[in-house]
């Protein structure tokens, strides 16, 4: 058999030839280094193309698609829900930290007041933090 054409070797890789022709080419390639080299090159290229398959972040992709297919009202509702949640979290954090600061301030004030009272016979007006110091 003469060398098979490049087209035949290409179709041979894809098994897009009649069985008898595949067999004929196979037998030839086993004996012919020239055609074997062409076949090997094409197989390497094939492998390289297969390897160029990328692994994408499909989780993000899916989330974005789902966001797009949701009805607008639901999206608006979700957006509002998100806003409300963020607002709640912020006010909780803000409120808590404000409480801590206030309690600490009060605690310090109470300690200071007690110290002053014990040392200087002081009368406290109480909660408002206004203190009166009596003359000795």
């Amino acid at each position: 058999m003469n060398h098979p054409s490049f087209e035949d070797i290409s179709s041979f890789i894809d098994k897009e030839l009649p069985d008898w022709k595949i067999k004929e080419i196979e037998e030839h390639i086993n004996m012919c280094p020239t055609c074997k080299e062409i076949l090997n090159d094409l197989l390497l290229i094939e492998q390289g193309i297969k390897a160029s398959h990328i692994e994408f972040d499909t989780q993000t992709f899916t989330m974005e698609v789902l966001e797009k297919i949701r009805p607008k009202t639901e999206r608006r509702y979700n957006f509002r829900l998100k806003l409300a949640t963020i607002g709640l979290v912020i006010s909780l954090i803000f409120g808590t930290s404000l409480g801590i600061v206030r309690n600490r301030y009060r605690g310090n004030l109470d300690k200071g007041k007690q110290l002053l009272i014990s040392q200087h016979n002081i009368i406290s007006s109480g909660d408002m933090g206004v203190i009166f110091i009596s003359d000795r």
Partner: protein
Amino acid sequence: MYKAKNYKDYDDSTLIKLSQKGDEKAFEEILNRYSNRIINLATRIMGSVDDGWDVAQEVFVSIWKNIKSFDSSKNLYPWIRKITVNACYEELRKRGKGLESSLDDVEEGEPSIDLPDVKYSPEDNYSKIELNEVIEKALETLPEHYRITLWLRAVENLTYEEIAETLNINIGTVKSRINMARKLMRDKLKYYLEVKDESS
């Protein structure tokens, strides 16, 4: 009665039927199954990851909108693949590139288009990974109608007949495109393949 709701266990046909009833979770499972392949396909046709990602998203959105028209007894993935190819060509058409060449029958012989050389400086010994990188680079420089035909053959593992159906061309054109694409790839990669042969 208790009904298992693990969507991973459902076949495509069930997922379609559920999606047709508006079950978003079923559609999410379809996305999990096929989005990576579809983004890859769109990326190859469009020639960029960003464009491929965007077109693939539009494809799934339009599938959700048109899911009711799909016959659930048919295979899902080939349908999605065909929609993707059409959507990419449509996008390329809007941008005024690619389509004329993709619809032309390819003549055997030397290509009329000037192809840029692969810009890699080969070393005497290089790994398979490096060769694959050069091959990917070479694939990117192919005209898009060669690139997509070769991709459908190599990665999607389609027969010539399936490629013809997907691209709306005849089998003879598929065959000549694949031959030409391989010829071009081999010419571009000649030096690298020779080095590879010597080093192996």
